[in-house]
């Protein structure tokens, strides 16, 4: 019955986490929508940049790849991989990286490399790209995931990108003087990390689902005691996202149908 899709509430939920002035390390897909919609709604001085080196492009058309020529136009500066990746760790800036992964554990560590082992691989993913670097060096990380038990696992097959490591103070002890995941935004909910244990907990579930569903789709024990229902996207948020950010719905995909479109996720 919702008048919005899961992709739409994901983009808007992630966008709400952006602060004005943040320097946003975006990938393609939902992360770009989240960054762009945040800039249009409440964070006009946020800057979007890409690991390929495009810093603050005009984004008149949505890039479909971080190496899309659309990330090179209207930029403040066109530079190189090494410059863009160096910016991630710049201590002056609140750099926020949007990442996705094939697997995530309860501390927000990510696997985007392989299932099995090098000796006996069961599946191969593209690899880190800049994800390990963003997870290591950025001020904070926002993670997008499809919410499935096989993705939310007790133990990663491969730790590509460091989250809160083994919880508590372990990230700092591992050698990272800042950073760590801020939130996990899925097609069902937004999860955050406990201040002390650094374990994931359910913060907000979308109106079309419930904490039990979220827990059952999560492959590790999830604290749902703090869960609240998310407020649905406002008309004006949806209007900005749909007509201002992705009018061709290249990333958003189909409009919600008269059925609750979000059910299909």
């Amino acid at each position, binding site marked *: 019955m919702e008048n919005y899709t899961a992709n739409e509430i994901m983009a808007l939920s992630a966008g709400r986490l952006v602060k004005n002035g943040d320097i946003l390390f975006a990938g*393609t*897909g939902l992360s770009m929508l989240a960054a762009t919609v945040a800039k249009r709604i409440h964070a006009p001085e946020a800057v979007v940049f890409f*690991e*390929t*080196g*495009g810093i603050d492009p005009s984004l*008149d*058309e949505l890039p*479909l*790849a*971080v*190496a*899309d*020529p*659309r*990330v*090179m*136009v209207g930029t403040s500066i*066109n*530079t*190189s*991989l*090494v410059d863009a*990746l*160096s910016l991630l*760790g710049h201590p002056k800036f609140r750099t926020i990286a949007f990442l996705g992964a094939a697997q995530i554990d309860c501390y927000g560590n990510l696997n985007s*490399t*392989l299932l099995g*082992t*090098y000796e006996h*691989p*069961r*599946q*191969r*993913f*593209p*690899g*880190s*790209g*800049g*994800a*390990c*670097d963003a997870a*290591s*060096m950025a001020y904070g990380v926002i993670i997008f995931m499809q919410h499935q038990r096989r993705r939310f696992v007790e133990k990663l097959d*491969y*730790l*590509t*990108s*460091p989250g809160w*490591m083994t919880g508590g103070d372990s990230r700092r002890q*591992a*050698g*990272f003087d800042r950073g760590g995941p801020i939130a996990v935004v899925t097609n069902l909910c937004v999860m955050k990390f406990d201040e002390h244990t650094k374990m994931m907990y359910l913060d907000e579930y979308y109106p079309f689902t419930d904490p039990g569903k979220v827990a059952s789709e999560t492959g590790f024990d999830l604290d749902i005691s703090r869960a609240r229902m998310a407020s649905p996207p406002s008309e004006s948020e949806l209007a900005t996202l749909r007509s201002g950010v992705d009018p061709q719905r*290249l990333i958003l995909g189909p409009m919600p149908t008269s059925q609750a479109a979000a059910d299909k996720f």
Partner: protein
Amino acid sequence: MALNRMSAADAVGKYIKDGDQIALGGFTVNRNPMLMIREIIRQKIRDLYLVVHSHGQGMELLIGAGCVKRVELAYGGVARFAPTGHRFKKAFLDKTIEVEDYSNFHMTLRFLAGAMGLPFMATKSGLNTDIVRRSGFSAACRGTDRVPEHKLKVIDDPLDPDGGEVIVLPPLKPDVAILHAQFVGDEGTCRICGLTFADIEQAKAAKTVIVTCEEIIPEDIIRQEPDQNSLPHFMVDAVIVAPFGAHPTACHKFYDYDPVHLNLFKNMAREDDCFADYLNEWVYPFDSQEAYLEKVGIRNLLKIKANSALGYAPGLDRR
């Protein structure tokens, strides 16, 4: 200085041997040196050792055609057209290639170390991850055939007593760097427009540099704006004129990526049979760039032609 201009066929014949370590320019769907890559496949070069950060259509094709033995990389995919490259994935799972995983920062730092003649680079990025703890290359190959003795090492910061552990990474000095640029001056000065990715570092690190380009322009013209240039003339060993030389990937200011072709490739790359058909249809038959472009067709090329003001093809159907 006289430009060492030649055909792609001659460049492969002269500069690329079985087993060479090759750095490919470009990134996923942008400025892959595709003309050279097709020619390497046509000449059946084998056992290549690719060193890349995030590749890409070119790597997919080389791996699929059986030219590759070993890869060091951070990312193997063609962006939205194949988030994990089909041929890369299959070769990895079938163990027809050996793969060593790094991050993009690691790989670009390694190219930078090679470019600058530094013994190694140090970073904290990736500490305590499996990128540090595991190795995809066999222990046996370490220290042989250009494979560095160590994938990397974790050491205590030698300068800062509170610095903790850092990762030190070996430099990359590939045998050949191949890149596609928009412009080369007729004495060799090279200009890349838009993002340079790690192409410049790769070229500076390499023993031999092969540049394909959209246009050769007079050297005195390219030197009127030397702030814009990417490589000095003497660093370029061979130049191949290659209009649409990055197709089906993009070349900023000249053409966009070709979604029709990339989708066609994606579908044909899934299965071995279909991929063989792709090679027979799109790679082996063409002994010139012109013949390949005839096959692509003027209608498709017009669709991806870049708008002069924007540098890409606005309104292109990219689904």
